[in-house]
């Protein structure tokens, strides 16, 4: 941000690139996965060159996702550790949903909802990787028993549904809370956005800038 008055820098270019690689692979995984999940969505396999190539490509996109998400995880894990503000925010959830943010306590870079997205994704991606490897039969068929694979397939489906629910919540929040998306496109948000949604973070950032300016 440095220098641009009225804006706050939220994500560096590498963080944004990392985010979008993860986002694209997750969307492709959701589309290819759902095409093999419910017959009414089988037509989506056309996006990936047919049923057989969808089957072949889906796990490889998963590999990309895991590597990419691992990057996001280590980038953001420290800022997503729980703190006292989280329970206060959760108690204020009705006000959050009404957009009545004056009744919501001041929050740092991430609120409890965003932290839930982070930890939910981290946990479920781990579940999906393990269950996914167990049913990646093209290469790993011989390493587990059929009964294990049945559970893996069910767990993979449930995990994927929950990931998609989190994805919907994440995307919806970014759309509903206007001014959010620029954080992941240009990398910065307006000071007003930061004041409204992440006031504590704004103060911290401003303090840092202040120190840097005085130094």
């Amino acid at each position, binding site marked *: 941000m440095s220098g641009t*008055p*009225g804006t*706050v820098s939220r994500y560096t270019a590498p963080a944004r690139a990392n985010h979008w690689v993860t986002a694209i692979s997750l969307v492709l995984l959701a589309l290819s996965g*759902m095409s*093999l*999940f*419910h*017959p*009414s*969505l*089988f037509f989506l*396999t056309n996006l990936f060159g*047919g*049923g*057989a190539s969808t*089957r*072949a490509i889906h796990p490889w996109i998963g590999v990309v996702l895991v590597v990419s998400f691992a990057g996001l995880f280590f980038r953001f894990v420290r800022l997503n550790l729980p703190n006292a503000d989280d329970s206060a925010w959760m108690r204020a959830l009705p006000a959050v*949903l*009404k*957009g009545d*943010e004056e009744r919501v306590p001041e929050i740092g870079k991430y609120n409890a909802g965003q932290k839930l997205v982070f930890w939910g994704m981290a946990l479920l991606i781990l579940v999906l990787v393990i269950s996914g490897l167990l*049913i990646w*039969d*093209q290469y790993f*068929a011989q390493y587990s028993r*059929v*009964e294990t*694979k*049945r*559970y893996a*397939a*069910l767990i993979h*489906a*449930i995990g*994927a*549904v929950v990931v*998609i*629910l989190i994805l*919907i*919540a994440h995307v*919806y929040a970014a*759309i*509903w*809370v*206007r*001014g959010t998306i620029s954080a992941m496109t240009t990398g910065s948000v*307006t*000071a*007003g*956005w*930061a*004041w*409204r949604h992440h006031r504590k973070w*704004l*103060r911290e950032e*401003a*303090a840092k*800038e*202040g120190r840097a*300016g005085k130094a």
Partner: protein
Amino acid sequence: MATSSVPSTLEIVRKSATKGGITGALQPSANEVAKLIDVSKCIGCKACQSACLEWNDKVEPVGINHGVYDNPIDLTENSFTVMRFTEWDNPMTGDLEWLIRKDGCMHCADPGCLAACPSPGAIVQYANGIVDFDSDNCIGCGYCVKGCPFNVPRISKVEVKATKCTLCVDRVGVGQGPACAKACPTQAITFGTKEAMKKQADTRIADLKSRGYDQAGLYDPPGVGGTHVMYVLHHADQPQIYANLPKDPHISRVVQAWKGIGKIGGLGLIGLAAVAGFVHHAVMGANRVTAEDEKKGAKVQEDQV
């Protein structure tokens, strides 16, 4: 039906991953065919295995000897049938019995493979009860392997397609019996309408009982709606002794949850979440940053500089 060029018995009654292709057993009809394998008449010659490879134009690569007669040791992408040999010590008589079971697809009336298959039309069931894989539609995902209560389908390594016994549907369609039945020198394998095969089984069971096999019986497990490959077993009360033939096979509850409520509930939840988003936005309106927010935000920054 009568005007169709397809024999009525080869009409497709169920297709995987299409409406009506999900649950429920085939309606019993006079069209149903069955292969009857009389375990008590089998001499273990493996002519059926050879005939199966021959008719399906498959070659089983030379394997290794596992120290038992089973060869290959398991069903493979080429070997749709395998003789499984069991040496069983009969605790009642003290006799050592050599049990030989010809393993392969059972052609369930309620096929788990078909229930699990995600690709429309990759697995079909004909009116005569035969369950068949259509390679053109198969995507090689291996879900059929998970759906099968008998662990029968195999996925080919190169083409990555599911394979299994077709009950020689291409022979049955022109009025012939399966290749294995044709090759069997002792008529341990016979083929006909399911009704006729059940009658034949009755005479065999009566014969076995008269010779001291009190528990002789027919294996036509109701848990999968009955099968179109049936066994006459001399110890029908304990099918497990025949190389782990399941006593009460049924489609795994895990697969049922995955392909039943999971499939519908999962999609429903995703749809609900999307609708909830639209409704929330319509009711609440966008959460916008106000001019006052901007002023206050900028002030925080200025104060620090």
